[in-house]
């Protein structure tokens, strides 16, 4: 059986456009609102990434840090994260959802326990920021056994040899980090250069769905269209932050932003 992630990419290929992948933090700014946000942006986004927040996020920039701290301050726990996923999946059974976070939370819960909770709540994939290849081999295998996609990351510093090995061991989706940066950095490499690098990687195995993330906003997204998928995260977190400050409704604001993002890659 094909995974929901694969099916989502297939649909986008049919529509001749990249997949739109969003990232928000579970529990930002409350459990209820983050679920509402997911339900609302799912109308426009093809795949949803949901962060399970950690209070020492070494690879995240300011926006996602702020969202994470806010969610934690509002009392989000892992069981709430899984609860949000379960509720979301109930009303959007075919929309792929990927959990993203840091390894310590998985380690404390126990890898098997964590994966069981993923399975029960309906998680389709996992991105673990600080569990690189080859250290992630065992865990990735465990994911596969449970039909959960383990999503490998590639970066501009990854050597060609290493890229080949990682792709060989990858599942349905691979995440290419556009530039040397934490999340939410300003795009300091030209989109042209990013697409050039992207194509080199894509050539190694055209069957793998390769998405680009880091530094993508409504200003840059259209210039990166020539790809299988594009991830927007920090801009979403920023809009949540701004709308809380201005006492606006983050759900409608976010829905609007994601609609706009989608429009630009059609």
């Amino acid at each position, binding site marked *: 059986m094909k995974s929901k992630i694969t099916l989502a990419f297939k649909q986008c290929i049919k529509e001749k456009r990249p997949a739109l992948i969003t990232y928000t933090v579970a529990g930002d700014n409350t459990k209820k609102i983050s679920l509402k946000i997911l339900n609302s942006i799912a109308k426009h986004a093809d795949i949803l990434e949901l962060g399970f927040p950690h209070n020492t996020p070494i690879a995240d920039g300011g926006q996602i840090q702020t969202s994470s701290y806010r969610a*934690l301050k509002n009392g989000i726990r892992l069981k709430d994260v899984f609860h949000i996923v379960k509720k979301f999946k109930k009303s959007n059974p075919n929309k792929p959802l990927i959990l993203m976070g840091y*390894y310590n939370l998985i380690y404390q819960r126990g890898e098997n326990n964590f994966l069981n909770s993923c399975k029960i709540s309906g998680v389709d994939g996992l991105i673990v920021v600080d569990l690189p290849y080859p250290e992630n081999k065992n865990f990735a295998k465990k994911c596969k056994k449970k039909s959960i996609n383990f999503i490998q990351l590639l970066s501009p*510093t990854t050597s060609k040899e290493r890229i080949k090995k990682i792709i060989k061991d990858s599942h349905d989706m691979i995440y290419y980090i556009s530039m040397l940066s934490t999340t939410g950095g300003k795009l300091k490499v030209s989109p042209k250069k990013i697409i050039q690098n992207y194509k080199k990687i894509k050539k190694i195995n055209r069957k793998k769905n390769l998405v680009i993330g880091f530094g993508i906003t409504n200003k840059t997204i259209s210039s990166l269209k020539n790809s299988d998928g594009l991830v927007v995260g920090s801009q979403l977190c920023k809009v949540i932050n701004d709308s809380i400050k201005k006492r606006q409704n983050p759900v409608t604001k976010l829905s609007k932003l994601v609609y706009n993002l989608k429009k630009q890659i059609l």
Partner: protein
Amino acid sequence: MKIKKGIPLIDQHDKNYLYGGKFGGNFIPETLKKPIDDLTKLFTKLRKDKKFLEERDYYFKNYVGAPTPFIKLENLTKYLGGAQIYAKVVSEANGGAHKIYNATVHCLIAKRAGKKYIVGDTGAGYAGKMLAMAAKKFGLKCKIFMGSRDIKRQRPNVEAMKKNDAEIIPVKTGSQTLVDAVSECMRYWVSNCNTTHMCVGSTVGPNIFIKICAFSTAQISRELIKQIKDEFGRIPNKLKLMNCVGGGSSAMGFWNEFMDTNAEFIGIEAGGPKNSKLHAAPLTNKSKIGILHGAAQYLVQDKEGQVGSIESCSAGLMYPGISPLHCFLKDTKRAKYTSATDEEAFKAYQLVSKLENISPSLEPSHAFAEAIKIAPKLKSSEVIVINSCGDSIKDKDIIKKKLGFYIR
């Protein structure tokens, strides 16, 4: 789990860089894989490079000021009436603390790597001050990440960093202390690893940084083992080496050359304010293993793995984790760990400063507190050596505020 004899402790890891199969490793974002691999290769080469080692020794002697003094604390010994108490006065090193060893070696490596920029984290401000000094000496541009709270409470070292032309980046996230400074420094490196060398200020972080730091501070015990043999004609049968531990860099350096001897190692963690549950003592308080800053270690954390709040009067010991090397030493029972409270540290500072010509900062005062506790119960044939790895001058404001006076 066992320590092998005759092999440097830093090399006793498996292919996943884990000590004892569970401490350390490289839990890092993909972007850092290559820079860390490159640095690992370079360091492996330099460790065997005679010229590099000569260069290191040259600067340790002529720039750091090796060897630092080894003195008997006659008055304290008399006052406590038990074991003979000695101090290795590492605070006499250039800049006033052991952090100069790691900073110097990192700058030498950065030069070899052809990097023009160097960044580092700091808590008490010593690691930052020394990196700023060394960077200036070796012609590197330097940025230091420091928690906003620590900037306020460690003024003298902040001034010293500025004097040495370092740019200080205040870290305003989380607790605004060392743990956040290390995180922010790593984030900066993720974004700038192609041009910039990173120095982690202690024996923490991804494996290579633990190695470089312990390799550098080992100078302390290379000197000490000679000084002890000169003083006693041999290594005394009952010798206790006491050292405070935050990240654990000075203790690793203090113990390294004694690893295969009978010397007893006692590490003292920050117990935090008396009667509070806040502490920075993951080894003493049986914290569970967790992952912080790229390494698995005993870690103050909650059930889910969020890093816990900690508190201590000494910024330098305020780290929720602890070097994987110390976790390894603890589980193999090679070293023992205990903690001292803020109050005990202040008392120890006061007693030592009053009786002796040295005045330890609040970090080593934690070690002195333990020595003061146990020395009276020991025989005069027993020897305690304490690593006095920092000077109280940097804590002048804190001490004045707490005690109402400052003596040195």
